[in-house]
């Protein structure tokens, strides 16, 4: 469903992506792992058109994303949880969650949008009393979960999660991992998740891709990851300081 072909992206002389090739099939969960600063977030942003790659093509359902006529309709198919949550700090929590449901092509009555927001907040483990607070009044982990609720609020068919469990306690991380898995198996969504957390990888992933050196270093089903002979993958999943991945980057 989503295909990246030979994507290159530089910032000045920082050549971040050097030919990324990746395929995510419909209704599957792809997890991207890799050291920090290797360009995982940038990879996802290129798919959404937030970052324009210098070369390479990205297709969704066979259609080139740089040539979509109706961008609103295109983007309405996606949900995105940003690494830093990226909540609108001028709006109360529930209006953040229901942002899409309050305006544009997916708009619906306010009461209904509010109800959906409360329901989504509950799904990410937040009680209704946070709904009327402002994002700045929440802890980082709570903000992250509000961002997650916003990403899934309109039940999009493709959802990107950028480090969904970073900053959460282990119990809440477990809740979120289960939720993402559920979204794939029950709602049939196609997801890409960036994470450093091997528990998340094992819960969420159908397939795993490891980004290193600006390319997909290894990709395969999650069941193969422990048997992978690639020394980079081995070092990463076991969190070893010694190995081919440099620790000063």
């Amino acid at each position, binding site marked *: 469903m989503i295909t990246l072909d030979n994507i290159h992206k530089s910032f000045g002389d920082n050549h971040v992506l050097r030919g990324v090739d990746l395929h995510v099939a419909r209704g599957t969960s792809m997890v991207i792992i890799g050291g920090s600063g290797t360009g995982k977030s940038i990879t996802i*942003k290129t798919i*959404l*058109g*937030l970052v324009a790659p210098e070369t390479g093509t990205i297709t969704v359902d066979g259609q080139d994303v740089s040539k979509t006529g109706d*961008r*609103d309709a295109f*983007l*309405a198919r*996606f*949900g*995105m949880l*940003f*690494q*830093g949550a*990226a*909540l*609108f*700090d001028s709006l109360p929590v529930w209006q953040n969650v229901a*942002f*899409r449901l309050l*305006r*544009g*092509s*997916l708009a619906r009555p306010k009461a209904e949008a509010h109800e959906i927001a409360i329901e989504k907040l509950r799904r990410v483990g937040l009680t209704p009393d946070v709904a009327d607070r402002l994002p700045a009044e929440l802890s980082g982990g709570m903000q992250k979960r509000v961002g997650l609720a*916003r990403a899934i609020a309109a039940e999009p068919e493709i959802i990107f999660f950028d480090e969904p469990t970073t900053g959460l306690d282990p119990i809440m991380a477990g809740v979120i991992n289960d939720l993402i898995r559920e979204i794939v198996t029950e709602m049939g969504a196609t997801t890409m998740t960036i994470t450093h957390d091997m528990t998340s990888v094992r819960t969420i992933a159908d397939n795993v891709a490891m980004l290193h050196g600006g390319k997909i270093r290894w990709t395969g089903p999650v069941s193969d990851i422990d048997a992978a002979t690639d020394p980079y993958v081995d070092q990463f999943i076991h969190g070893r300081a010694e190995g081919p991945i440099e620790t000063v980057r």
Partner: protein
Amino acid sequence: MNWIAALGRATLGLLAAIGRVAMFFGTAVTHLLWPPFYPRELALSLLNIGWLSLPVVGLTAIFTGGALALQIYAGGARFNAEAVVPQIVAIGMVRELGPVLVGLMIAARVTSSIAAEIATMKVTEQIDALVTLSTHPMKYLTVPRVLAATLVVPLLVAVGDVIGIFGGYAVATGTLGFNAAAYIQNTVDFLQMRDITSSLVKGAVFGCIAALMGCYFGMNSGRGAQGVGRATKGSVEAAAVLILAANFVLTGVFFSV
């Protein structure tokens, strides 16, 4: 020969910047004309830029009008022309000081806050989030602010003009011994339609410049807290200089016969 190259580079840089701002403005105008519209955002901007600026505009105008009356009286006394205080206060406030001072106060108060807010949104990926939620940042953030400022700053200028004239009146009748009724009569008789039109047009242009610079610098902010700081500083500098330049041009257009 080096300085020629440097001059050339600076000129090219300036032209490129003007081009980028013009493109930005053009994009904002096209978004103004095409739906969806965000009336709630417009209302919030009108409140923020208009209503909440009234105290600072009022205070600026009243002190300026008062000081103007004192200066004209003192200066006029050197050639027995003290009586022109009402006329010169009216002209000075309405034609120049009202629009310029209100414009500069708006640059200080509104441009800076727009730039800081939008730059922070940019740095914390809120602008990216807007895009992924099928909401165009130009439509949702820039259009309401620029439109609101263009509509409401002329009103602020009108209020400033009136309060400034009142400041002059209060000083003139309170301490300089002017007759109250005659002061008002002189003011009203002396002002022409053209003075008032120019005042309001200047207000609209200055409001547009102030909000546009805030949005432009905010949207093009660099990364991190430093990026936000630079965007804010740059926006106020650009807005103030452009307002003064536009004032010069508009004064030329309206009053050079």
